[in-house]
């Protein structure tokens, strides 16, 4: 891909993989954020006046792909999004986020109506300094965790980025406008799809490797067509997610907002199916705690809930049945 920048998105893939591997050895979330920040990955989308690189969203895709594949235990998605969202309006804050000084997350579920309330689905909130909370009017506020905002551990499906609940009694802090929040949510749809792509591709690679190694009935598993076809279907699933992400970010995409939403909805179903199939191919071994396929599955399902895949599907239905698609078509035509 040619861009007006000296770099291409693919240039980040190897660095991201190496840093994610290093993160696996690091002891705490703070250590991992420091490693990511040192490599410049947290600030890829932040403005260049805010310790970032000011790059377009495509550049974050290979980084989050590596994070998904490598089961990164850090709120990298949230950090990237908030460093970008505060750039331009609150540069000091954006800088502190981009360089890893302020560790942030987002409570993806729930809205505040006033200064107090409870929100949840905030990955790794226990290890963060502040959490972004959405408000009923569409705007959002970055609340410092502590006295007025208490983090409560929650039952969590995701093991790498355990979710927490946040009980807020006094919401104060820097704000994001409704417009910025809409944009943040849209970018999050694409970047979450990149995380899912990484998790799905790693599941598929592990399943392919296992099937070519494990022998039953005197032959490797992959010698059986049923197994080949399982793997091929998951390859189609992975390539479907990859191509849809690429399309959503292409300057030639006619309706990028619809495309991003469909990419995310599609990725959640296809990504989960790929991890589930990989577990099936591993047999009893796939059901063990130590084989990390369940981690990918848990992660994908959690991302689906954080990104509200089910509600988004309802919004597609609403748009379709209201005739808005047809109206949009006509508008495009005129």
């Amino acid at each position, binding site marked *: 891909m040619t861009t007006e920048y000296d770099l291409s998105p693919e240039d980040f893939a190897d660095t991201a993989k190496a840093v994610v591997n290093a993160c696996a050895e690091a002891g705490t979330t703070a250590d991992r954020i420091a490693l990511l920040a040192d490599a410049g990955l947290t600030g890829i989308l932040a403005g260049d006046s805010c310790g970032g690189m000011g790059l377009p969203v495509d550049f974050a895709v290979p980084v989050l792909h590596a994070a998904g594949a490598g089961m990164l235990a850090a709120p990298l998605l949230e950090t990237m999004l908030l460093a970008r969202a505060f750039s331009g309006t609150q540069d000091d804050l954006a800088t502190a986020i981009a360089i890893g000084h302020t560790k942030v997350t987002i409570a993806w579920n729930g809205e505040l109506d006033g200064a107090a309330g409870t929100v949840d689905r905030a990955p790794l909130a226990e290890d963060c300094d502040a959490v972004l909370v959405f408000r009923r009017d569409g705007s959002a506020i970055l609340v410092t965790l502590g006295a007025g905002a208490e983090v409560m551990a929650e039952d969590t499906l995701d093991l790498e980025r355990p979710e927490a609940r946040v009980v807020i009694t006094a919401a104060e802090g820097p704000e994001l406008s409704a417009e910025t929040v809409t944009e943040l949510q849209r970018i999050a749809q694409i970047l979450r799809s990149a995380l899912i792509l990484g998790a799905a591709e790693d599941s598929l690679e592990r399943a392919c490797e296992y099937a070519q190694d494990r022998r039953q009935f005197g032959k490797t598993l*992959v010698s059986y067509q049923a197994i*080949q076809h399982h793997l*091929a279907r998951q390859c*189609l699933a992975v390539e479907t997610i990859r*191509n849809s992400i690429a399309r959503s970010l292409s300057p030639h*995409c006619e309706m990028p907002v619809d*495309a991003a939403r469909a990419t995310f909805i*599609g990725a959640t179903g296809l990504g989960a199916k790929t991890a589930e199939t990989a577990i099936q191919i591993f047999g009893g071994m796939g059901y063990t705690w130590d084989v990390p396929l369940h981690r990918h599955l848990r992660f994908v399902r959690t991302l689906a809930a954080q990104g509200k895949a089910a509600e988004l599907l309802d919004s597609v239905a609403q748009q*379709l049945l209201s005739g808005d698609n047809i109206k949009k078509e006509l508008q495009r035509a005129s």
Partner: protein
Amino acid sequence: MTQTAAVASERPSLETAGDTARAWLDANLPQGLREDILQEREPTFAELSEWESKLHKAGIIGATWPTQYGGGDLGLRAHLDISREIGRTPMPESVNSIGKELAGPIILAVGNERQKAEYLPAILEMRNIWCQGFSEPNAGSDLAGLRTKAEKTDDGWVINGQKIWTSGASKSSHCLLLARTGSVEDRHRGLVLFAVDTSLPGVDIREIKSIDGARHFCEVFFNDVVVPEADMLGSPDQGWAAATRVLSIERATNRMHRAWRFENQLQHLVSACAENPATRRLVEHDYARPLAEVAVNIELLKGHVETLVGSLIDGNEIGPRGSLPKMFWSEAHQDFSKLALDIVSRFPPDLSDPLRAVKRRMEDIYIKARAETIYAGTTEIQLGIIAKRILKLNWER
């Protein structure tokens, strides 16, 4: 300016080849050819043929072919833009798609100058209609097992054998024939492609009735048919390479419009149901989510098509990746066809014409969709290609 705004401003201007195509199609598609209104009768072959030659005159067909052969010399991006508009317009499928999308590109790739000059403009002007003679009774999925024999003599090549499932053969003037010079044991070696004039003595075409009631695909017998040397396409050893190329085009870029036609079918179903309180309720209460899933699949399919086009523009070959859009489309479209049939089969009696039209269209789509996972390589064969050539899995035989 935000970064997304910057991206948005890079989007193509409104004056694209697609816009021109859309305006022309909107103004010129005859009522009798619309698939979204109730028709008294099926259009005739002559009407369809005339429509397609008009499409060519309007620059909508043949956009990427060189101007010297009647094309528009445009790039693949323009072809995609035009294909979107073709898809969005509820018009009949081409009766010469084999000529335009398979034979033409292969002649451009391996044909000589005389063959290009003779065949290409004739395809666009609908003077020549082509069919594809690959499959045989004993060589379907295992195409390399084909037996139709081509023997070289002083008078030219003598062809003997039988093809089957040859779409449109009884209406065609030419057949893109794959035959072999040696024996079946040679498998992929010794295969050769010909442009065979179907009016030659010894060519015998018999129609086969298919499950949709049509008599479109055929058996084609070749009994001592003498094909001039000049009608061989490429060299005798290029046959398999050329055939594989035909197949990857068939799977990937052929009927590039299908994602948008699929969308048009979905929107037709939804908008027709919205007209009547009972059908509107039916769709809203019982089918909202499944229909939304179809809409999502259509976007995902566009992702396959548009990135494949981008990759071709960057100079990459289609290769085995052609199996991805083919598989995704055929299965997603079949799923839609089942859902659509389910919906229209619950329509109340006393239907208005728009509802009768959509019912008829969806029933037809359902039956025809059965073929989509069979032709151009069955689903099982696509899965094998993906396993072996994309995943590069190794297995013992």
